């Protein structure tokens, strides 16, 4: 019987052939922690009696969630990470480098066929380059830092095939929001998803990352895509290790196969406070907006800032709206500066904050007021997510967010994309 991508990666990393349902103890290629989870991992590491790390070159710390620090207490936690990194020779990306998931991929730290764990739920993003990557908790990160290993249950896989042609003004974010609505927030719990089909084939890597990033929003353990020539081109000059791409066998066993036609898709919006309450943009058009946010590990990349600049060029953000942009990395910020997108957006009234998570998780840099409606390119809209449980968060594509920032209400971006 053939194997899925997950079964193949776990067979390699566990050192013997395994299939869905097996419990394995596997060698981890990369372990990542960010500033919301690593301080607790360091505490666990010490409580476990950790004296050394299994391989410092395979552990990465990133300060992105609360960066730069808004509070003295947070500065202490950041220093705890810096001290540990220095002591054990672990590489640390400090304030301003960018969002953990963007850095792990753009810096070539993850390669196809890898097994990666990260103490952050959106670690599943790296599935877009064909790595099995998944989120863990702080104590598991500590266990991996010591032993280099972790136990897993090899997941079953749901195959999602995306057929057709994506219409103009409709983006990969609209696809994954639509899928969340169709599959549900727990539709793929404990399972992996393999995305494929002509729509994926035509996407650039940046667009694919958005889809794998949100696999966890349908409960999935991983959101995988088989590498193709675009993946390999993207990895060229980035990958820091040699690698072997992993492809599913033609006769692989899937838990189920779901096929979607994207040709008729329209821009979609997730309504507060659930990512799977999803509606076509027209059905929520005219909801007044007080804050718009473009950024995050889902949609803070160069293409996302570019589309916002295209929509805002020569126009002015609605006076009732604070439009906040957080580039996902320093490199992306530099590209946006060089291409003139920053100037366009700032002239239009947008506010750039430092590369990192920005207001995504509600600790600083754009906490909304009471009764505010926020439209955001993030992946989560739970009540209180952005730091105020009396605000309501709508999720959409960067184009829809930029169009809504202009109009002061939720708007279909297609009318701005001439």
């Amino acid at each position, binding site marked *: 019987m053939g194997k899925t991508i997950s079964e193949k990666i776990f067979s390699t990393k566990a050192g013997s052939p395994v299939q869905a349902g097996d419990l394995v103890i596997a060698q981890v290629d990369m372990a990542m922690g960010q500033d*919301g989870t690593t301080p607790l991992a360091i505490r666990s590491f010490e409580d476990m009696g950790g004296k050394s790390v299994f391989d410092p070159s395979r552990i990465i710390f990133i300060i992105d969630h609360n960066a730069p620090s808004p509070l003295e207490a947070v500065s202490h936690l950041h220093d705890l990470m810096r001290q540990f990194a220095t002591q054990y020779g672990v590489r640390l990306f400090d304030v301003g480098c960018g969002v953990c998931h963007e850095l792990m991929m753009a810096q070539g730290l993850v390669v196809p066929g890898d097994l990666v764990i*990260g103490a952050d739920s959106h670690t599943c993003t790296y599935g877009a380059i064909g790595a099995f990557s998944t989120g863990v908790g702080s104590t598991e990160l500590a266990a991996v830092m010591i032993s280099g290993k972790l136990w897993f249950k090899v997941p079953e896989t749901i195959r999602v095939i995306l057929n057709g042609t994506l219409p103009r003004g409709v983006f990969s974010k609209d696809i994954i929001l639509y899928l969340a609505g169709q599959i549900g927030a727990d539709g793929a719990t404990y399972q992996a998803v393999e995305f494929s089909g002509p729509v994926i084939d035509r996407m650039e890597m940046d667009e694919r990352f958005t889809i794998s990033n949100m696999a966890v929003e349908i409960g999935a353990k991983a959101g995988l895509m088989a590498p193709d020539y675009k993946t390999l081109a993207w990895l060229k000059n980035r990958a820091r290790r040699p690698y072997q791409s992993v492809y599913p066998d033609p006769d692989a066993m899937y838990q189920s196969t779901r096929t979607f036609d994207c040709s008729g898709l329209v821009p979609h919006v997730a309504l507060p406070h659930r990512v799977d309450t999803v509606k076509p943009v027209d059905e929520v058009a005219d909801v007044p907006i007080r804050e718009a946010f473009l950024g995050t590990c889902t949609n803070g990349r160069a293409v996302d800032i570019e589309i916002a600049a295209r929509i805002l060029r020569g126009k002015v953000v609605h006076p009732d709206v604070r439009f906040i942009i957080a580039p996902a990395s320093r490199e992306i910020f530099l590209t946006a500066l060089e291409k003139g997108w920053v100037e366009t957006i700032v002239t239009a009234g947008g506010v750039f904050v430092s590369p990192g998570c920005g207001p995504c998780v509600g600790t600083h840099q754009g906490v909304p007021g009471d009764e505010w409606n926020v439209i955001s390119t993030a992946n989560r809209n739970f*009540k209180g997510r952005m730091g105020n449980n009396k605000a309501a968060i709508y999720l959409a594509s960067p184009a829809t967010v930029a169009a809504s920032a202009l109009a002061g209400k939720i708007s279909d971006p297609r009318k701005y994309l001439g």
Partner: protein
Amino acid sequence: MILMILKGKTHCFGNDINTDYIISGRYKFKTLDMNELGKHVMEDIDPDFARKVAPGDFIVAWKNFGCGSSREQAPRALLACGIRGILAKSFARIFFRNAINCGLVALECNTEGMESGVELEINLTEGKIVNLQGGNVITASPLPDIMIDILNEGGLIEYIKKYGSFQKRVSSSSR
């Protein structure tokens, strides 16, 4: 060895209770003091929750408990506020692992019709949950062996302290 018989009162919740609700990002970034975090558990959906919990109590929920972020502060803050175990129809996987790793009991079972304020007795060895008022018994899905081993040690910290790494099966005494 963990306590194999647990007793406590129930606090009921619905579907999709996410980690932001369990402990908001507003608090979790500021401190590693779990007792402080324990005071704010479930605050956004039930402001009085922490005050209502007596040590040893259980949370009973429906589908997808613990969805959202990977924050281990969620199960740790629940433990700090006195919650000993969670019964749910299903869990989000990272939360499920985190809970067991911290020594918080997490059992998948049919929670249909359960009410708040009911006294339960949980026999972990047998995976049986008894409603001490109504008398009815439900059975939980068995945990993977490795999770039982981790729970038996009192959590992953103790487990790694003892074994240094993950072992396929370390104890056979657990059931």
